[in-house]
């Protein structure tokens, strides 16, 4: 794999579970991945497969109870995060590792001015006078291209449009120039024209600061346009990992393949419109009562006996293309 010194984040065998009244919920089950400086890693997967919990685990913000990180290691720039005590972790959060949450409206404190929220993030980690921090905040707002940043900094979240709020979140996350940025569905609520702007912005800043980026999304179009590497999750497990090109060109896992097939395409000139979309039949199994073998087996057209009995290991299919499927080799032909 990559050169060690270049690694920003190294996640090994991360396990996060929820202890719920309906049973043990393995939201993240043995997930490993790495992020290099300046690299974008996308995480995709069906709704509820554990993407957000993975992200929260990295920040050690999984709600406890009911959640708990029960195993694995998260190494950020050589520091084992899971071994830090709470106050040490606080020094890391927002400083070396930041997160942009899914919902910009509910993720900003409604009763604090935008500027103050950014100032807070700065001053928590950099000892500096309030005035200086305010200047940084305005500067950050300018950086995310909010017009009239000085005025906006004095406004409250509800006075900003959705797109601007999302930008303010980004400004806040980047205020301390973190080594790693986690963006959890940063554009879901936005119209595609705005989405394009925001994504472009994140990528620009990433390039400028050399930040590692973990991008969580269900929009494969976004993945294709932004990420270098992708991991696909299904029912709490990583089922496939590859460079973005390899994944789109040659998905090894039937679930990935199914996802790809479900994407409705915008008919560019000449492309005939298909009236019916491909779908993956069935639904995601409950994370409590996971089948013994491959969790996707019940919905998989390629499933064989073995799939129901044994969980397939992640195998490398060359060039770091990992997939967990007994029939990964045949997927392309059979499907």
């Amino acid at each position, binding site marked *: 794999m990559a050169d060690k010194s270049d690694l920003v984040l190294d996640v090994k065998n991360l396990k996060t579970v929820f202890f719920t009244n309906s049973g043990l919920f393995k939201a993240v089950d043995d997930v490993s991945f790495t992020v290099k400086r300046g690299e974008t890693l996308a995480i995709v997967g*069906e*709704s509820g497969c554990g993407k957000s919990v993975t992200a929260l685990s990295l920040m050690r913000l999984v709600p406890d109870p009911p959640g708990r990180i029960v195993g694995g290691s998260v190494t950020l720039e050589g520091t084992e995060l899971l071994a830090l005590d709470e106050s040490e972790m606080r020094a890391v959060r927002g400083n070396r590792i930041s997160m942009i949450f899914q919902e910009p409206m509910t993720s900003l404190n409604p009763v604090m001015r935008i500027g103050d929220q950014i100032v807070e993030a700065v001053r928590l980690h950099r000892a500096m006078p309030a005035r200086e921090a305010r200047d940084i905040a305005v500067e950050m707002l300018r950086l995310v291209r909010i017009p009239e940043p000085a005025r906006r900094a004095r406004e409250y979240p509800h006075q900003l*449009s*959705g*797109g*601007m709020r999302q930008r303010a979140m980004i400004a806040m996350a980047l205020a301390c120039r973190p080594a790693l940025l986690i963006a959890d569905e940063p554009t879901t*609520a*936005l*119209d*595609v*024209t*705005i*989405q*394009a*702007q925001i*994504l*472009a912005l994140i990528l620009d800043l990433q390039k400028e600061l050399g930040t590692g980026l973990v991008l969580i999304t*269900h*929009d*494969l*179009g*976004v*993945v*294709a*346009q*932004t990420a270098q590497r992708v991991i696909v999750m299904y029912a709490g497990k990583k089922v496939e990992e590859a460079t*973005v*090109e390899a994944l*789109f060109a040659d998905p090894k896992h039937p679930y990935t393949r*199914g*996802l*790809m097939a*479900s*994407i*409705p*395409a*915008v*008919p*560019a*000139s*000449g492309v005939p*419109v*298909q*009236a*019916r*979309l*491909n*779908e*993956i039949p069935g*639904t*995601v199994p409950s994370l409590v009562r996971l089948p013994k073998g491959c969790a996707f087996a019940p919905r998989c057209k390629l499933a064989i006996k073995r799939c129901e009995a044994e969980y397939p290991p992640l195998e490398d299919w060359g060039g770091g293309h990992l997939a967990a499927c007994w029939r990964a080799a045949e997927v392309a032909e059979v499907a």
Partner: protein
Amino acid sequence: MTEALLEVTDLKKHYPVRAGVLRRQVGTVHAVDGVSFSVHTGETLGLVGESGCGKSTVARSVLRLVEPTSGQIRLDGEDITRLSKTALRPHRRSMQIVFQDPFASLNPRMAAGDIVGEPLTVHGLASGKELEARTAKLFEQVGLRPDQMRNFPHQFSGGQRQRICIARALALGPRLIVCDEPVSALDVSIQAQVINLLIDLQKAHGFSYLFIAHDLAVVAHISHRVAVMYLGRIVEIAGKDELFRNPRHPYTQALLASVPVANPFAKKLAPLVDGDVPSPVNPPSGCAFHTRCRFAIERCKTERPALVDAGGGHQVACLLNEGTGRSQ
């Protein structure tokens, strides 16, 4: 196509904005500001546009769930714009709505079966055994198991909830179903399930849909015609193929160009337009899009373009398109 089932003419809906600690009206949200379109029997009209541009308001006005400020709504030739609540009730049977947020539009304290059967009860169409049978049939129709009738909304997945909403809408055998972003909350595989269901139902029963979404690809798959809204107005409306092949309004073009293509080898994402969507309280003068439009000319700032036919039923509201038709 046959004659219009739904005809909306110059629909306007303004909300007053009262601001400051005083309650004085400081402005008006021009949520919908003069929208006209029609939907024919067996046809799907797609409606796309930025979040907050007034799509849901159109949808709810059509069903008279909000009172339009002005304009006319004709259902099957009859003007229902000013009907009283009671007079409207029989018409409710011919049009139904599937709401944007499936979970929020289901009463969390009612069993799914009761939710779907309720329209029948309310209109006195069925009761007792018959009610149960008909509800069960509806469940099957949308691909749910009748044994799930006793479950509560929170026990269903997103896609399933969406189906419950659809089943409820189908219960009265409406001719028009307004679908307000029925798939925006879903991921692609579930989204595909719902779209397919709607298409199947239309084929089987000849429903008409007013289909609202912000995902152009989804709209492309289900619609016969597509209307594009920007800030309370329709800026372009055309047959689906025509619109996607030949978008004439700069906003439509930007939308289409901004859709990220699920192909890492294709050209990288580059925002075509800059700036935020302006507020509907103080819409820009002239053409509302001129603040973000790459092609804007001086006239756009002062003159509001009308929706004009650029040929073949392809209507567009852009000054650059007048007469000739192309902006690029």
